[in-house]
Each structure stands twice: as C-alpha cells, then as structure tokens.
C-alpha cells in the first residue's frame, strides 16, 4: 500500500503507516481506544483518498476513451459525408447529363411543326398559362398522357442521393419562374436541370410515340410573325389617312434603327451606351403616349400566351395599346435582329451591347403589358430566322431541310453558305446576349431568363447523331463563345456538364467532321487555354 498512492502528504506523520515501528511501540497510548479510533479514521481517509484518486483517473480514462471514440467517429462521419457529397455531385452531374440527353426536340418533318414552344411555362406570370396547359405551370407536369415513362423519367429519378432529388422536384414546381436568381450552385442546378427534361417528354413523345402529324399544334411564333407583317400593313394604311402619324412614324423608325446601330461594345467601361438607351426609351414612351393618334390594338395578337385578365399592380392593364407602340417594338426587335445578322455575323462580340439594350428596354416597367414584357415579338422573329434555337432540324442538303434550318432565300435563290453561316453566327451570339442577362441587382423582371438558353442548347445538343447539321454547330459555337463565363455563373457545375456535352461529346458523335463540327472542338481548346476550363 505504501507508496502506491500518488499524492501522499509527507507532513502528516501520524497517519502514515510508514512511521517507524519503534515509535509505535514506545508511544504510551499505543493501545488506547482513542488512538485506535484515530488510526482507523486515518486509514479510512487514506482509503477514501486513494479510492477517489482511482475513480478520478478512471473517469478521466473513460473520458479520454470517449473523446477518442468521438473523434474516430467524427472522422468516419466526415469521410462518409465526403464520399456522399462526391457521390451526390456525380449523381447531379449525371442527372444533368441525363436531363440534357433526354431533351430531344421533335423531329419536325414540317416547318410548321413546332418545337414545344417554351414548354415550361416560361416566364413567371401568365405566360405559363400556355395554350396547352393553362393551369399547370411546369413543363414536366403539363405534358399530356403520351409521356413515355421509359424515356422521360430516368433523368429525374436517378437523382436521389437521399433527400436531394425529392427536394428538387417540389422546388422546381414551386419556383419555375426564378431559376435565374436561384441558379447558383446545387439549388440552381436542381431547379433548372429538370426543366429541359420537362419539355423533353413532349419532344420524346412526338418523336417516339407519334410521328409528325400526331401533333398539329400551330406554331404560335410563326403566327405572331404573320401578325407582325399585318401590323406593318395596318400602319401603312393608317398613315394614308393620318398625316400626323405619317409625319412621325418614319422618323421614329429611323431614329430607333440608328440608335440600335450606334450601340458599341463597352470594353468594361460603364455607360457608353447610355445616350442610345435613353433615346430608345424616349421613342417608345412617345409611341406609348400615342400623340400621333394611332389606332388601338390588342397586344395578345403578339403574345405566345394570351393575357386575358388585368394583373394587379401592372402599369398597363387596358385591353388595348396604341398600335404605333407595338409597331415600334416590332421595329426595335427587327433592328436588333438585323444588327445581329449584319454586324454580329462578322463580329460576334458586337451582339452583347444589343442584348443588354433589348433586355433593358423590354423590361422597362412602362412597356410591360399586364405584368409581362412584349419580348415575344422579338422571339417570333428569332423563331423565323434561326429555327435551330427552337429545336428545328434539317439537312443542309435538301430544300426542305434548308427551309427548316432558316437558310435564307433571296429572289428565289439560297444565299451562299458563307452568308448563311454568318447569319447563324450572329444570331447565336445574339440569342446568348439576350438570354444570359443578369437581373439580380435590378428590380425589373428579366424578360427572357437564362433557362431559355439552357433549353435552346439542349435542343441542339440532343439532336440524334445522324441529324446533326453544320448550322446547329455554328449556332452552338457562337452561343457559347464569349458567354461561357455567364453560363457557368448561372448554372455552376451543370453548366460545365452542358459545355462538355456541347463542345466535346456533341462534335464527337457528329457523323461528318466538317469544319463547323471541328470548330466546336477548337472552342473547347480555346476555353482550356484561355480560361483554364478543362472539359474533356
């Protein structure tokens, strides 16, 4: 016992059993009861002390062990989480791929056969109340019974690393309008990826289940385009009897065209186009005020989805707007498209300031009608001049194919290949310039949020290998070039997956390695070299 206790107080000589035996013996009251008790007492104290010590050590040991165990457990947990995260990332990436893969546009044997025109209900409010499914907002749900489960579902279902995938679906449904703002990181990824998937189901439907004639849905954009032609005639008619209108309309048109033509690349300098922007808005305001007494018109003629009812808080809720205002928007859209074709075709970077101007102008609260923009006027033109953005496909080697691809004819002759590819280059860049605009800092509503960019890309990238055309490659290249950064900002990893699809896998499976196909490869190389973006 002696020496075994760690903290033996050496001063306490009486209690110590190590006292010399002689002392004990010599002591008088060696056998007294008091002394006996005292010794007992001391022994007990000593016993307690040692026991306490032992217990403390034991407790400490336990705690240490516990801590060790927790640590190990934490590590294990962390490891697991890391693995799971990796898995989740892989899965989401896979989902993105699947999602894109599935989104195959319809086969389009007839030019009028529409690609599901912005099937996810597009913009927030009533636009989604589409001709097809007015009550259902989302593309995925709005698809009719023909939806082939075998095709459309995998994209959605594989995505279940625990809670994430189920969460994604409601999120998507709840918030279809705002993916642009929520688009960063995984949330954005999940809320966006399924969307192209949504339309795919229609696409797939028409492709696998029902060939062309099964869905004779009228192409609303083409209708709008016709209506716009009529609007132009209507304005000319009015001008004959309305001298004030005649006096002013041409000047406004030319002023607007000039201003759009004056827009320049900013090269990082803010406000270089302020004057032009102000001029354009001023002209539109003037038209809206209708001092020239143009006749009123129903704007629904130029909308993808009619807005039947007034919207609370909208600046303009009246059933009719001045025709000169609608006409001027038409001119504005025309000027933008023409600038894309003529200027951005040669130099794609010039499309960007025009995209900024389009987004800024059409989102102007004064120019909204029943809470929504009039951008469908511009999109109708896009649909006509660059159909591959809307999922139309065709062979460049046939008359009908060229027609579907938007290959222009002039005086009955096809324009040259170079002219056509120039046009497509400009229009691809223009489309990106309009659909990849950031509206986060601004109160205004984005008239054409980035999910449309995703959809358009998906429609090209998911073309069956045998049907890939040079036109698609050219459009794809120009909608990616100079916009990869914005795209990635909006869609994160999903954007990377999409870029890999577009610039690596898509060209790889093209049947003919034409210059247009190869230029996608080269763009991937450029991104690697200049931005360090490795897609391969």
């Amino acid at each position, binding site marked *: 016992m002696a020496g075994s206790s760690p903290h033996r107080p050496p001063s306490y000589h009486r209690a110590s059993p190590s006292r010399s035996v002689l002392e004990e013996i010599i002591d008088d009251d060696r056998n007294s009861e008091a002394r006996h008790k005292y010794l007992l007492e001391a022994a007990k104290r000593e016993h307690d002390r040692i026991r306490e010590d032992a217990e403390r050590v034991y407790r400490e040991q336990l705690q240490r062990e516990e801590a060790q165990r927790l640590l190990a457990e934490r590590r294990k947990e962390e490891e697991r989480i890391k693995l799971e995260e990796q898995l989740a990332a892989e899965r989401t990436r896979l989902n993105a791929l699947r999602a894109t893969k599935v989104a195959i546009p319809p086969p389009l044997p007839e030019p009028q056969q529409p690609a599901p025109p912005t099937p996810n209900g597009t913009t927030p409010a009533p636009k989604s109340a589409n001709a097809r499914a007015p009550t259902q907002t989302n593309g995925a749900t709005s698809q009719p019974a023909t939806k082939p489960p075998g095709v459309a579902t995998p994209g959605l279902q594989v995505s279940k690393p625990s809670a994430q995938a189920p969460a994604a679906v409601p999120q998507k449904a709840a918030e279809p309008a705002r993916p642009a703002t929520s688009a960063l990181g995984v949330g954005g990824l999940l809320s966006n990826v399924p969307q192209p998937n949504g339309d795919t189901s229609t696409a797939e439907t028409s492709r696998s289940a029902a060939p062309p004639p099964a869905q004779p849905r009228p192409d609303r954009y083409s209708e709008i385009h016709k209506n716009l032609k009529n609007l132009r005639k209507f304005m000319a008619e009015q001008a004959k009897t309305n001298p004030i209108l005649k006096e002013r309309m041409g000047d406004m048109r030319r002023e607007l*065209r*000039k201003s759009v033509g004056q827009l*320049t690349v900013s*090269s990082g300098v803010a406000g270089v186009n302020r004057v032009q922007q102000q001029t354009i808005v001023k002209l539109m305001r003037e038209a809206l005020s209708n001092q020239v007494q143009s006749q009123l018109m129903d704007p629904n003629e130029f909308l993808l989805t009619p807005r039947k009812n007034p919207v609370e808080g909208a600046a303009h809720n009246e059933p009719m707007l001045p025709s000169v205002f609608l006409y001027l928007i038409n001119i504005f859209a025309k000027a933008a498209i023409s600038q894309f074709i*003529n*200027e951005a075709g040669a130099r794609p970077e010039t499309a960007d300031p025009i995209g900024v101007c389009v987004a800024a102008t059409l989102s102007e609260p004064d120019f909204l009608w029943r809470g929504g923009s009039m951008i469908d006027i511009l999109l109708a033109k896009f649909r006509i001049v660059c159909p591959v953005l809307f999922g139309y496909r065709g062979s460049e080697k046939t008359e009908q194919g060229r027609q579907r691809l938007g290959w222009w004819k002039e005086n009955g002759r096809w324009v040259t290949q170079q002219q056509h590819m120039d046009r497509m*280059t400009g229009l691809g860049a223009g489309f990106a310039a309009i659909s990849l605009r950031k509206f986060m800092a601004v109160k205004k509503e984005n008239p054409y949020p980035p999910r449309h960019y995703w959809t358009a890309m998906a429609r090209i990238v998911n073309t069956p290998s045998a049907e890939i055309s040079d036109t698609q490659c050219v459009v794809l290249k120009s909608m990616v070039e100079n916009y990869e950064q914005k795209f990635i900002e909006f869609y994160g990893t999903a954007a990377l997956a999409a870029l890999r699809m577009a610039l690596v896998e898509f060209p790889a499976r093209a049947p003919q390695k034409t*210059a247009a196909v190869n230029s996608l*490869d080269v763009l991937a190389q450029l991104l690697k070299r200049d931005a360090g973006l490795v897609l391969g």
Partner: protein
Amino acid sequence: MADLASRISKPSDAPASDAPAPAEGNGTEQPIDDGLNRGLIESSYDVEVKLSDLQNDTDNPLASGVSSFEELGLSKQINDGLLAMNFKKPSKIQEKALPLMLSNPPRNMIAQSQSGTGKTAAFVLTVLSRVDFTQPTQPQALLLAPSRELARQIQGVIKTIGQFCENLIVEAAIPGSISRETGVKASAVVGTPGTVLDLVRRRQFDVSKLKVLVIDEADNMLDQQGMGDQCLRVKNMLPKNIQTLLFSATFPDKVMNYARKFAPNANEIKLRHQDLTVKGISQMYMDCPDESKKYDILCKLYGLMTIGSSVIFVKTRESANEIQRRMEADGHKVSVLHGAYEGQNRDALLDDFRSGRSKVLITTNVLARGIDVSSVSMVINYDIPMKGPGDREPDAETYLHRIGRTGRFGRVGVSISFVYDRKSFEALSQIADWYQIDLVQLSPDDWDLTEKKVQDVIKSSRARPEYAPSALGN
C-alpha cells in the same frame, strides 16, 4: 497615290471573251450537293491561273485547286487557328493560290484579287507553313506593307491564325517598334520597307535564313516613287532563292511587267477587270442640294438601314474634324484618322475602330487600301476621290479601293457617294462609266421613300446571280 488611275487598265483592255461568269455553283438549282461544294469548280471562269513554265510542263493537278483547307495538309495547329477564326473553307483566291504557294520546291507567285477575298489569309498561311517553329527568334519570313496600319493588321492576322502554334514570334518592323538593343528576334517579321532597310543595314535584322518574302499591295509598293526602290533594295539583300509572293487588288500592266522581274518565273493568278467592282456592294449616290447640307444628310443615312461599322472618306482634315463634331453630337462614336496623327497615335485610333469601341471612322485617303474591318457595312465618299493637278480628274482606282473597305468576304456592303454640284456629279459619272456600274440615285427630300429605295437596292444587289461566285469562294 495621286497617280493611281494612270495605272488602272480600262475594262475595255480586257479580252473580249471576258463575259461574266456563268452563275452556277451558288447552290441554287441543286442545293442538294452544296455541301460538296461543286460550285468551286466553276471558279476557273473567274480566276485565271497561269502557271510558270516549269509547272506548265507537268500539267500540274494543283491547278484545279482545292475545295477545303484539309486538302492542303496544313498542320493541325494552323488548321485550328483557322477554325477559331470561323474560317471554314478557302475563298476563291485561296483555293487556287494556296496549293501553288505551298508546293515544293517553293515557287514565286503574283496574285491579283479584289479586296476582301482573303488574300491576307492566303499568304499568312504560306508564311506559317514555311516557318520552322524550333527557331523562334530566327527571322524566316518577311512581309512588306505600305503603311504601319497595314503592317500591324497583318501582324495581327499572323498571330490569330497562328495562335495555336507554339513558339511563334511575330514582330512589326515599323518605326518605334523594334528594340534598338536586341534587334529583330522573331520568326516572322512584318514591316514597312524603309524601316526594314534600316534594320538590315544596322545589322539588327538577320536576313540570311529568310525563306519567304511577301509584298502586300504590291502594285502600290513596287510602283510608288521611293517605296519601289526600297523594296528592291530590301530584295537585293535577301537570299537569292527566297520565295517571293506579290499580292494586290490591282496590277496595272506597267507594274505587272516590273513585278515579273521582281518575282521571276512566278505562277500568276489574276481576276478579270469587270470583276473588280465588288459585286456585293450596293453602290448609290446621294444628290445633295448644296455642300452645306451634306452634314445633316450624312447623319440621316444612319437611320436608313442597319449599319455595323462605317467609313467616311473626306478630302480635307478640316472637314474630317467638323464631321466628327457633328456626328458625335448625334450620338455616334467616331474615330478620325488623317495625316495629322502620328505613328502610335494612329495605331490607337484605328484600334478603337477595329475593336468596335467606335463604329464610325472618318479618314482621308490614308486608309483607302487594305485595312480590313470585317463589320464595315457602309462606305461613304463624302467627297468624290479626285487626282491630278488641281484635282481635275476623277480617281477611279481610289474609288475602288475605298468601297472595297466594305462587303468584306461577301458580306453585305453599301457605298454612298455624295454629289452636290456639276463637278462632283460628272466625276462620279465618269467613275461609274469606267467600271460600267449603275449607281442608284438617292434623294434627301422624302426620307420614307429614300429608305425604301435603299432597302430595295440592298436586297436586289445581294440577289444578283453573279454576286456569290465573284465575291467569295462559294
């Protein structure tokens, strides 16, 4: 540049058989095989190829040209550079000239082709193919141009097409650009003749290993007093077996004879005279009531059609500055470039225009030649180009070079010339007669009407059948 017109040959000098090319091959009747590009074979109607004696003997298959860049067997790096620039297939001049220029042993070449048809890319490809990239600081190719702007531009094209070539160094031998200490340390050198001459004399430019000599705007370079001498002196200092390539939009006979001595035994590629007015360019003139109205009318033009960039040619620096003031007040971003601006200042001004920070370029004749800004869709002759003592004669050749700034590579281009009095009207008429072109008259009285007319002209000229084969290789 005043004597340009004396060197142009009249269309009537050309052989009578020079009927316009058959309008085949632009994919009209048989668009089905357009992908195979059958139309290119018809191009022998447009481009005359005259092989040098040696090659004539062997009935060289190269004379038929190639229809894709792949067939040329360019290295992957160079091919990728072309694709990055959206070059998808050779233009007419390229498909004919490149096989000849790239063949071995190297042969000289004299090539004439209208502006905007890809001459620059043709010789740049040759240069890049000849350079040995393992010797990046050893000068191996020399390119001469008449102005610093053009030299800079060519330097830019080499860098862009060669962007995937490792160890490619391109320097511009223009005043103030080569370091006095190190001298020329590049495999490709683009310069003006005077500066190159200086550098060689100062032994700062080792010419012993040069393999290719390119002279752009060769008619101008070889003919002009001073510059012609300089070119010859440069040539005499170079290795005797150097491959010499001469390029220009025009080669008057007088210059051609000299060129054949300068580049002996060369293959020749030539476009016929009528084709020299670029068919894709809609040429119009504006009938101004008097000179003072020209400013306002000028500003109005920009509302008539969609315009990318535009170039306005004026006679004097003063009117250049005044137009700039007015146009800026009207919201345009304008660059002015004339002789009063020096060297690097000029580079910067032109760079603004090239990069798109400004979209209107006002200039005197400095820039009539060669400058290629692909998005230029309108050229305005604010003053009709004149020459001779007291500006008595119209300068048809300068007119041609000016309007060649637009409609690059078969794109839509418009030129509008201002006339306001008898003299300017007659001068323009003579130019139009010279080239046998119809100019469409515009009037500033009713802008609605003028707008419609302009739109119609653009449409119809684009649809002209001979447009496609003549303006681009399609």
